[in-house]
């Protein structure tokens, strides 16, 4: 009987370990101050025909309760290097715009880049970390998908299309999967975080960055809110 009990106990322990998803860090990033209005983008005729109205820059996406979208929130320090899991994230080129505007991937994770337009785009990555190689290639065919990756962490790597100079987007590259991008109302959720002490940073292209130190235990649900400010005049 005893050996069966031992096996059962081991199985229960292993099962419980597998089902432990880790901690969850959630929060909201708010914007203090009123940003300048976004600037209309002068699309060319072909790309302009793909949109029913004018297109503007996407620096300040401010939603309900001053929530700020497109903020890259990530564990800046304290997290162990963790290999990527799950599906490769996708950067799409649709209507001569990149979607999403801000996204995250793990180092060495495959990034899918798709051209959803029936015209030529070139994809030009301009990383600053010397370990990440600059690349520039063309996608002339609608539906074409290419895969690329970045070996070193970098927040944020800019992607651009030189054929359509108004097309640019940003990718946060971390050596772990503990990051998120705020939605249009400024909310974010980082899941499966192992127990530990971390520094979390909320980084926005124009409103700057703020950090918070946070400790989480297994299964904890912690909140970390941030308030970023519209930059004052120099």
């Amino acid at each position: 009987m005893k050996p069966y009990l031992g096996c059962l106990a081991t199985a229960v322990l292993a099962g419980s370990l597998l089902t432990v998803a880790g901690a969850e860090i959630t929060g909201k990033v708010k914007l203090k101050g009123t940003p300048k209005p976004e600037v209309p983008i002068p699309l060319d005729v072909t790309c302009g025909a793909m949109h029913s109205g004018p297109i503007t820059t996407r620096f300040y996406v401010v939603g309900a309760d001053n929530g700020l979208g497109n903020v890259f929130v990530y564990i800046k320090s304290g997290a162990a290097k963790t290999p990527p899991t799950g599906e490769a994230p996708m950067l799409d080129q649709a209507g001569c715009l990149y979607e999403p505007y801000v996204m995250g991937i793990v180092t060495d994770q495959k990034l899918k880049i798709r051209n959803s337009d029936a015209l030529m785009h070139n994809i030009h990555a301009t990383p600053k970390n010397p370990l990440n190689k600059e690349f520039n290639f063309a996608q002339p065919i609608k539906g074409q998908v290419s895969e690329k990756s970045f070996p070193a962490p970098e927040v944020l790597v800019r992607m651009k299309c030189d054929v359509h100079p108004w097309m640019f987007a940003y990718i946060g590259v971390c050596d772990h999967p503990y990051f998120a991008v705020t939605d249009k109302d400024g909310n974010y959720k980082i899941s499966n975080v192992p127990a530990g002490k971390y520094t979390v940073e909320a980084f926005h292209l124009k409103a700057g960055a703020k950090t918070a130190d946070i400790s989480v235990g297994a299964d904890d649900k912690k909140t970390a809110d941030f308030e970023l400010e519209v930059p004052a005049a120099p």
Partner: protein
Amino acid sequence: MIRSTENRWLHRFAILTALATLFLICLGGLVTSKGVGMSVPDWPTTYGYSMFFFPFSKWVGGIFYEHSHRLVASMVGFLTVALAVWLWLQEPRRWLRWLGIVAVFGVVLQGVLGGLRVAWMKDELGIFHAALAQLFFVLVCAIALFTSRWWASAPKVPIRDGSGPRYMYQAVTAMIFLQLILGATMRHQHAGLAISDFPLAHGKIWPALDPDSIARYNQKRLETTALNPITAFQVGLQMAHRLAALLLVAGIIWQARLTIRHLGWSHPVARLSIAWVGLILGQAVLGAATIWTNKAADIATAHVAVGALSLLAGAMLVLVARRCFETSPVEAVAAAGARGRNEPANRPAQLPA
């Protein structure tokens, strides 16, 4: 083979090559101003095609400008080779024949620099590409001047202490070239306007350059194209460009004053030096307009083109002064001056068209 210094068609062909080069500089300026230099990722091919057979239907967006720039550059290359061959066959002056060969090396080097800038993805090469373009333009224009009928029979101009204006032309022309390198360095950082206001700089006479202020400058601007972040170096560079512009305006007005004092208002050299003043004043206005229009591509390109013409005017004055100015005793100058006042026919030289 008959060689003659008088070959009207060769001279006209040199002028054609110079005009094509100016057009090429304008196209190159447009490519950089629009930020589309990397829209064709490969070189010497264009998206895998031989550049001469790249289908017109694919000339979309920024590709149109970059590919046109490559084609016009090829045309200038062919014109330069033809010019060199023509010079080699028909030009009696050996040094001028070799100048044609130098031009061929120049245009090949320029093409390779432009190509490597794309293939190696090195912004820095763009600075050398832009600077060499200016030198090549001056070289081709100089060949046009040397092949003109006027150059062969240029009359000497008696001038008291001709070294004064001569040194002034040389100094100011060298300064213009340095200023063009400054401008090319600013443009090829692909960071847009490091200072977005004028005549103030970020609201001050001298902008703050500490890291916090630089971060705020970057945060404040809402760029519609993928510009690199500005740095303290770039802000300093634009301030240096502004100060150099002031010095240049003063220097060119001063050279005109000096030239007029020596030659009077109606002398062709004086007219050229006055035209130089007009060019530099226009260039200053275009520089300010580049900032006021947030670096509108057409204005920024016009700024590049007039910069090239300003350098050319200076270089031509250097060459003409070297050819014509002859330091003479006071009496000879006085006599020439008296003749000049009494006789409208006293025109020391007709400058080439």
